[in-house]
C-alpha cells in the first residue's frame, strides 16, 4: 500500500473542458453508482443576450463554459463541521470520506455543501461521496476521472505544488462556484477565457437537471 501525499487537490483546466461528461461516467462505472448518485458533476454555466436588428440580423454576447466538480476535500469542510453523527470525517491525508456505518441519512451535509459533493444513496439510506479514488492511489494509480478525461482538462496533485503553476491565472473563484472563503476548497480551476466572477448573475447554471434531482 503506497502512502498518499497529504493535501491532494483536483485541478481543472476550464479552458479545455468541453462538458463531455466522461469523468462523470468513469466515476459511476468504477464505483457502481446507481441512478441519481453523482460523485462528480459537470456544470454548464451559460448566459448572454440576443438583440434582433431591423435588417433580420442578430447581435449577441452568448457565452458558455463547463466545470467538472466532485468533492474539493476542503480545508474547512462544512460537511464535517455539521454532521451530527461524525460520519463525515476528514482523514489525515486530507481526504473527506463518509463512514456509512455511522451515517443516518439525515442529508444535512447535502444541504450544507456548496458543491453538491455528498450524494444520497436511496438504496442504503446513507450518504456517499468522492473519496479521491483512495484505493487507486494506494495501489499507485490515479483517480478514475483524471484517467478518463479525453481532453486532459482534469488532473490532480499536491495542492501547494499545483498552486505554483504559472499558467494557473487568477485563483479567485469563478461562477458558478461559490466564494472560496466559505469552505476553503482544496481544488484549482484555471479560469475559462469567458469566466465570470463568483456570484455573477450574468449567467446561470443551465443543466441542473443533469447534476441533481432538485
Amino acid at each position, binding site marked *: 500500500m503506497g502512502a498518499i501525499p497529504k493535501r491532494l487537490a483536483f485541478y481543472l483546466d476550464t*479552458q479545455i473542458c468541453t462538458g463531455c*461528461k*466522461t469523468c462523470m*461516467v468513469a466515476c459511476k462505472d468504477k464505483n457502481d453508482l446507481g441512478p441519481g448518485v453523482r460523485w462528480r458533476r459537470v456544470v454548464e454555466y451559460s448566459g448572454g443576450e440576443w438583440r*434582433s436588428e431591423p435588417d433580420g*440580423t442578430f447581435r449577441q454576447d452568448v457565452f458558455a463554459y463547463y466545470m467538472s466538480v466532485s468533492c474539493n476535500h476542503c480545508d474547512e469542510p462544512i460537511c464535517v463541521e455539521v454532521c451530527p453523527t461524525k460520519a463525515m470525517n476528514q482523514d489525515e491525508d486530507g481526504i473527506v470520506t463518509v463512514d456509512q456505518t455511522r451515517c443516518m441519512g439525515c442529508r444535512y451535509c447535502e444541504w450544507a455543501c456548496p458543491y453538491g459533493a455528498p450524494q444520497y444513496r436511496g438504496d442504503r439510506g446513507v450518504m456517499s461521496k468522492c473519496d479521491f479514488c483512495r484505493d487507486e492511489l494506494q495501489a499507485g494509480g490515479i483517480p478514475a476521472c483524471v*484517467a*478518463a478525461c479525453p*481532453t486532459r482538462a482534469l488532473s490532480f496533485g499536491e495542492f501547494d505544488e499545483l498552486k505554483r503553476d504559472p499558467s494557473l491565472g487568477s485563483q479567485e473563484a469563478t461562477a458558478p462556484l461559490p466564494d472560496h472563503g466559505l469552505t476553503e476548497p482544496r481544488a484549482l480551476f484555471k479560469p475559462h477565457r469567458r469566466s465570470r466572477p463568483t456570484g455573477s448573475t450574468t449567467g446561470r447554471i443551465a443543466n441542473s437537471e*443533469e447534476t441533481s434531482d432538485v
Partner: protein
Amino acid sequence: MKTVWSSCNVNCGSRCPLRLHVKEGKVVRVETDNTGEDAPGMHEIRACLRGRALRKWIYSPERLLYPLKRVGKRGEGRFERISWDEALDRISEKLRQVIDTYGNEAVSRIYGTGNLGGVVSGREQIDRLMNLLGGQLSHYNSYSTAQIAHGMYYTYGTHDCSNHLTDIVNSRLVVFFGNDPAETRMSGGGTIRDLVLAKGRSKVRIIVIDPRYSDTAAGFADEWIPIRPGTDAALVSGLAHVLITENLVDQGFLDRYCVGYDETTMPEGIPPRNSYKDYILGSGPDGVAKTPQWAAAITGIPADRMVQLAREIGTAKPAYIAQGWGPQRHANGEQSARAICMLPILTGNVGIQGGNSGGREASYGFPFPPVPVGSNPVTASIPCFLWTKAIADHKNFTDLRDGLKGKKRLDVPVKFLWSFASNTLVNQHSDIGQTHRILADESLCEMIVVIDNVMTSSARYADILLPGTSSFEEGDLSYQGYAVEMGALILRQQAIEPLGECRTLYDICVGVAQRMGVEQAFTEGRSHDQWVEYMYHQCRKVRPDLPEDFEEALRMGLFKWSRGNRPKVGLQSFRENPNKSLLSTPSGRIEIFSRQLWDLARSWELPEGDVISALPEYHETWGMPADPNSRKYPLQLIGHHHKQRTHSSYGNNPWLQEVAPHSLWINPLDAAPRGITHGDTVRVFNEIGQTVVKAKVTPRIMPGVLSLPQGAWYTRDEKGLDRNGCINTLTSQRPSPLAKGNPQHTNLVEVEKV
C-alpha cells in the same frame, strides 16, 4: 479477475481501446487505454463517456437474447421465439425464393453503421455472403457525407484532401463552419485531443460559425458567429464579395491552379459572364451582387461583422478553414460544401502548411485490409438515402432522376432487406411516417431480416429478428478510426460468453451459407476465430513490425504508431507542381466552375426547386424561411449530434441518459412568446409529423432555429405519438439535388407547450 483488451465499435469516427475487468464471467469495470506516457502524438486513446458506459448497454435488460419471428403487423413489435434452425431456414428459403423470382437486384443490405471497425464482426460479412450468392443491389453515399463528398468531388476531384487538424499550430486563423469535434469526435485519442494540443501550443484565433454555440465553441472559440442553417453559401458569397472588391484574393493562385474564377480561366464553350467573379459581383445571369448587405438578411449575420471577417480571412496567412458535416446535410448541402471551399481557394490557402482545402480535417491511419468480400455481380447501385423508393416505386427509379448507377432504371423492386447493426430502417431515416407506410405493406418488401443487440424501433419491423453478439462477447480486430492522427490496431478478446443465444454475424452468415450451398466458399475452411487470426496476419503485411506470434499480439492487445513529425498537407504535391500532380478533375485543376456540373444540370431530371449549378452558389430551398410553409411552421429545425448517443447507438443507456438528457434546444426569444420555460414538455410538429420532448431554453441557439439532437429512439405511445423526441418524425425524404443525399437538417417546424 482478469483484464482483457476490447474496443468500442460505433460510428463516431474513432476507435477506442477498452480494458475490461472480468470477474466470474461478468465485466465489472470498463477502463481505457493507459499505455505509454500519454505523450502528444502517441497519447492514450481514451474512450469517451459512451464507451465508458458500455456495461449498461451490454447488460441492458432490453438485450435481444433469442431469435424471434414476427407475429403481429410490421412495427407492432410482437414476436415469438423460434430456434436458430428455424430462423436460418426461413431466411434461406425466402432468399432463395426472392433470388429465383426477381433476381439478385431484389436483395439489399440497408445502410447501417452501428457496428464499425470490427473486421470479422462487421457488416462486410453480409456483402461477402451475398456476393457468393449472385450479388445484391448495393448503395453508395453515406448518411454522413453524401453532399460534401459529391460537392468537393467536383471541385477537387475528391473530398479527402484536407490538412490534419494539428496543422493549426502553423495557422494564423482557424475558421470552422459547423465543425464540432467536441461532440462528434469525442475520443481522447482523436480530433478533440488534437485540437486541445494544437490550440495549447499555438494560441491561434479560432472562429466557429454554427447556428448553435456548440461545446467546441464553448471550449475553443475566440468568437462564435451564429448563422441560419443552410445559408453558409450566402455567407461565403458575401465574404467573397469583400475579398474580391478589396483585392484580398490571391489572383496568382486563382489563375494558375483554378478553373472558372474569372473569364480568363473559364472552360471553352461556356457563354460569357458565367464565372465565379461574375456571380459574386452581380454581372452573372441572376444580376444580384452578393454584397454583405444581401448576405446579412439571409444569414442573420450583421454586414459589418461579415466585412470584418472577410478582411480577417483575407489577411491571415495561412488560414485553416474547415467545415464539419453539418452544413452539407441540407437540401442545398452540395452548394454549401463547395462554397465553403471557396474561401481557402480565393485566398490561396489550399495545399500549404497551416492552410486547408475547406473540407473536414484529414485523418491518418494504416490501410489495414477489410475482410475480402469478393466482387458484386450486380452493378446497380442506389444512393443510400433512396432505399424506400427502391422498394415502393422502382419503376420510376432512374439514373437521371434518382442517381441510379450502373443501370438506367431499376427492373425489380427490393424484396428482401438485410439490416445489420442498423437503425436506418426506421429511426435514422427521414419521415418515419412515410417509411412506416411503405414497410407496413408486406406485398412490397416481403422479407426484412434484422440483426441487432436490442429492440430498436427498426427491429420492430423485422420479420426475422436475430440477436447478435456485442463487442464484449466476440473477439475481433479493430483498426484505428479515421478521426485520429495515429495508427492503431486493437486485438479485441472475447471477454464473456455470449448472452442468451446471441451469435456472431459470421456464424449467422455461415448458417445461411450452409443452407444455400456456399459454405466452403464463404468460410474458406476457417472458423470465426481463425478468421481473426488470418486477418491479423494480413495486417502484418501492412505493418511488419507487428509480432509474428498471434498469441503474443493478443496478450499485448493494443498497438499504436505515431504519424511522424509534420501534419499532413492535403493537395501539397498539386500545390507544389500543378502541371505534374494533376487533380483528378477533368481539367486537372481546382474547378470553381465545373463543366461536369454544368452538363449534369442540363441532363438530369430535377424536380422544381432543385438546383445543380456549375459554380458554388447560394440557393434557398424548400424547408427554409422563404418556403410558404414557413407561415405555419416558422422555425428552422436542425438535429445536432448529441453526446448521449452515437447516432442512435447506446440510446437506452441509463447512465448516458442521466448525464446527458435528451432535449430540444430553443432560444428564449422563441420560448417566451410560447410560454415555454426550461424543462417544459413540448410538442414539435410540422406537416410531416410530430414528437414530444423536453425543452432546453438556452441562448446557445439562434433565435428562429431549434435543434433536436438526432438519434433518439422513436417510441410510439398508444395514440401513435412519439414521446421520445425523435427528429425523424419531422424530416423529409426529398433528397438533395446532386448527391441524392439526406437533407436532415432542412426542416420547418412549430413548437408548443404540452
